[in-house]
């Protein structure tokens, strides 16, 4: 299941709603990405997430299907927010549930690495020096590459 929305999400509710009654699940892994304020010279006051409506949903649906093809998941969920967010606010939720924890962990990291490098979202930060668009990080590209099939 995937959702792209402006509103916040309730982590406990989403996990419960996704996994309730599924007694074949042994491990549930959850990732929550939040707006980080590095402080000091890199301080930010807010962040605005722009996205490519339509493409975002297509891409999230495709990558969730790919994760379910690669690992035996009992349930999965991606929720990604857009709009203006303050430090500490939740940006993204990824939940993966499987009989065994190794599949749930691997699929979750795969999805998060993918979101950082492929999902059509762009972050603009508000800083004391003005607003700036966040540049893609090479470490995210490297993290995503480890999932490439040989």
């Amino acid at each position, binding site marked *: 299941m995937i959702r792209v929305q402006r509103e916040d999400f309730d982590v406990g509710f989403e996990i419960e709603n996704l996994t309730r009654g599924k007694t074949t699940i042994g491990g549930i892994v959850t990732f929550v990405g939040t707006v980080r304020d590095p402080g000091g010279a890199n301080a930010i006051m807010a962040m605005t997430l722009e996205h490519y409506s339509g493409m975002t949903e297509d891409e999230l649906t495709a990558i969730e299907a790919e994760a379910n093809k690669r690992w035996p998941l009992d349930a999965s969920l991606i929720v990604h927010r857009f709009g203006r967010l303050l430090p500490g606010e939740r940006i993204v939720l990824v939940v993966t549930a499987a009989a065994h924890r190794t599949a749930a962990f691997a699929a979750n990291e795969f999805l998060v690495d993918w979101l950082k*490098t492929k*999902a059509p979202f*762009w972050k603009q930060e508000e800083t004391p020096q003005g607003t700036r668009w966040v540049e893609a990080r090479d470490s995210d590209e490297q993290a995503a590459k480890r999932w490439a099939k040989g």
Partner: protein
Amino acid sequence: MRLLYFAWLKTKIGKTEETLDLPAGIATPAALVDWLKTRGPGFAEALKDRRTLRVAVNRRHVGWDFALKPGDEVALFPPVTGG
């Protein structure tokens, strides 16, 4: 065709989207970008280095040599920074 610009491309070009006819002889996103650069200083500045850009056609990531068709939705944007 429909053209979309995101993030700092949008700011530099001064618009979010536009609709225009695919010019004769333009068969790939690479050729499209070269043609767009001739449309004004904002375009020239935003599109000057293709290595800082990515392109999607009909909402799918594609390469610069992808074959364009009339009516395609073409989006230009910087590398994504989501998650």
